[in-house]
């Protein structure tokens, strides 16, 4: 019987691996050695979707002790069948990069540096900015006297990186505030 990589991994990763492999008539010694060496052995498989184009290739993240140890294409997804392009293949490096932003950063007016702040501080301050802007600039009626309730002086741009649920509440928030300048990559 032919074992493709996917089936091999499923078997090797499960507790019943020895039994299954034995039943399949595979010599166990080299398989065990191989599995022990693999950094993904014993890791939890978590399915995710590549965040770089709408082919939406599926990717499996391998997690051990709460840490990401590897990523690779999901062979079961009928569209990518395990394959990934350069961007999808770089998922691991992207996620684990130490170049990533670590803390909320604040740049005061006319300042030449970033300062680290807490999330609470940032949220409070942003909420204050939004409310003051809205209170000052919300247009209740246009020149013709029509009710318009719109806030033209504030905007939202982005993003197609957000999930559906994030987009849905972003839109709801903006319309509640009266925002009309709203756009993202769909128009780029």
């Amino acid at each position, binding site marked *: 019987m032919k074992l493709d990589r996917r089936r091999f991994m499923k078997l090797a990763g499960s507790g019943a691996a020895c039994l299954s492999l034995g039943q399949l008539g595979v010599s166990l010694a080299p398989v065990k050695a191989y599995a022990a060496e693999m950094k993904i052995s014993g890791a939890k498989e978590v*399915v*995710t979707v*590549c965040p*770089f*184009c*709408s*082919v939406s290739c599926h990717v499996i*993240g391998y997690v051990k002790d709460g840490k990401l140890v590897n990523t690779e294409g999901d062979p*079961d997804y*009928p*569209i990518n069948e395990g394959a990934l392009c*350069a*961007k999808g293949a770089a*998922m691991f*490096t992207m*996620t684990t990069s130490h*170049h*990533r932003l*670590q*803390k909320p950063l604040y*740049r005061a007016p006319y300042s030449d540096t970033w300062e680290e702040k807490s*999330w609470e501080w940032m*949220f409070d*301050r*942003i*909420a204050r*900015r*939004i409310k003051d802007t809205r209170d000052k600039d*919300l247009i209740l009626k246009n020149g013709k006297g029509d*009710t*318009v*309730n*719109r*806030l033209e*002086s*504030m*905007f939202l*741009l*982005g*993003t*197609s990186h*957000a*999930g*559906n*649920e*994030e*987009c849905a509440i*972003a839109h709801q*928030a903006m319309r*509640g*505030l*009266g925002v*009309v*300048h*709203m*756009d*993202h*990559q*769909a128009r*780029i």
Partner: protein
Amino acid sequence: MGSNAAEHHPISFKWVLQAKDKGATVMHVDPKFSRTSARSDFHVPLRSGTDIAFLGGMIKYILDNELFFKEYVVEYTNASLIVGKDYGFEDGLFSGYDAKTRSYDKSKWGFELDADGVPKRDKSLKHPRCVYQLMKKHYSRYGIDAVSSTTGVSAENLLKVYKEFAATGRADKAGTIMYALGWTQHTVGVQNIRSAGIIQLLLGNIGVAGGGINALRGEPNVQGSTDHTLLYHIIPGYMAMPNNEWQTYDDYVKANTPVSNDPMSANWWQHKPKYFASLLKAWFGENATPENGFCYEYLPKIEKGEDYSYMYLFDRMYENKIRGGIIIGLNPMNSVPNSNKVRKALDNLDWLVTSELHHSETTDNWKRPGVDPKTVKTEVFLLPSAHRLEKEGSVTNSGRWLLWHYKAIEPAFEAKPFGDMFVGFMKRVQELYRKEGGTLPEAVLKLDYPDRYDPEELCAKINGRFTKDTVVKGKKYRKGQLVPSFTALADDGSTSSLNWLYAGSYTEEDGNKAKRRSTSQTPMQANIGLFPKWAWCWPVNRRILYNRASVDLNGKPYNPEKAVIEWKDGKWVGDVPDGGWPPMATGKGRYPFIMSKHGFGQIYGPGRQDGPFSEHYEPVETPVARNMFSKQLNSPVYKYVSSEMDKLSAPADPNYPIVLTTYSLTEHWCGGGETRNIPNLLEAEPQLYVEMSPELAEEKGIANGDGVIVESVRGRVEAIAMVTVRMRPLRVHGRIIHEIGMPFCFGWTTPGTGDATNRLTPSVGDPNTTIPEYKACCVNVRKADRLTELAT
């Protein structure tokens, strides 16, 4: 056409290659020879911005040689409908043009109706004002010579493509077109795609297996972010944004619900009030009642005809009319045209909230090269965002499949998902309004806004719930339970749904269908590669839209070898049919194009801003001074902004004789703000370059690897010359015109890689979408004396 799928949607291209292995002809029509061209049967270079001339020639070829699918065209498209007497077209302008407002009065383009208000038809296609005859006349001007001279494509190459593609007009053949931003990013972007729509309808290639016009959506969840609408002009589920003329809920519903008097037309949008009322219920919860118009009064109303897209936003920002805003997961300082202007415009903000994985040209704009931070007043917030593996939720792919991604690990460092950020500040804004009051606090306080970001719960809320006990098809649902489908949505306040298209994706019966991972399929489904049990597809798990156009009037597949659906023993089998009505021949059927008011595929499209048929116009910046097809050089209705920084070069300007097109790279995403920070990707594509033909290089004295300056009337950019036969000089209007190509993903925050290519491109846009014309503008190129932006 308009796509380099092998490099930009690499995994989609795998299926193209599989089709090729099975005997399909793959043709690549694109200015640049790329990996897509290399793997195609042949490549045909054309000048950027001349796709309509190219496709118009194909329409003429199909009509002249009667290669269209006659029964399909007569029964399923609007070819047989009679257009009213007011329609006209003369020398590049359709009737109803107003030069002062640069717009059309579209009422001039309507259909002629009978006494019952049903469009008149002539199925013999002979009536001089039927769509078929008007189309024939319109495209009669697109002869091979004019097309060849405009596009730069040889007559031989034109005929080769026309012949191959027109051969799919047979019932047992299908042809598909894959396009991407190469078509949309033009001042005639929508009409590029309309041209393809006309061709595919003529050839009977819509609704069938292996057919269609495939928009290769480049951005990760751009299908979902469009459905859930991070856009100004619509609200979730493709409904119009309220404007000042629709003052009440009733005004809105009346103006936006199409009425068809034809009993054969399903006119699906007649149900819009149910979707709209359910959306308002989801937004305003208990506060929304039928009596108060579901809180419609609190919504913002845009000014009718006003444009709030980013091109206009940045223009208003430049004019100091914008105070603050939020930019997340987007790098407009690199990816929006005329970067010099937009970078300056951003300095005018009082406050700016950004959220990213890394610093970008946008987050750090206040300290960009040449600017003293001490002169920039903007208060900037930069929030670290979680990466895909660090959060769960759903996304929607190019084929409308709703896909769940699970959380693998905790967000790195202090990063958070965008969802947490919106909840984080919105709850506080609500709190402030509760405490302090303010301007129209009701609009904010009456929102039914989540207390914490819970994607699973929100996914269910998107599907929708009953707000009272209800019986649907004999089945009882309690208040709070999930609606089984959008057919259960109502406009009496008894249902809520954040997006009607997604109703049926998360149900009491089957749970969250985005999580389904079964590859099981019937032999019929397997035959055409449908996976109805893998995830879920909007609408109602229908995988191929308009699939009732794939069968004849008796419900028999036109191509039994590749059947999508079939009427068998009194029911449909195969894919989920586009409406369950019996076949047309029973007299109880409905026309297959259920989303259009009259039920037909729209060869004639009277709803667009720039005309019911496509017409070639030159790009706004063009190397030629005249249009071969009419006196009208550019689109008469393209959009533009006009600050002193929005200069345009004159047609055929000798200072800018070269056409520039821009593109992405496999290794970098969009403006590059993320991928440039990944060492392995940057190593593969490290620096900004410009591809040019050996002929142009020789003319300019440039050698491969030289540093060069590319200049437009708006800005200059440094790049490394890549002299290559991938770019070909084209013979246009009897002389040689050169085209060059550049990626746009490099920026100053990654030192030595180069800076925004979009400093060259203009802020002019399509009249329907306001998508800017990135793909064609005019530049010049010369060898650089010294380089400051590029590491050498």
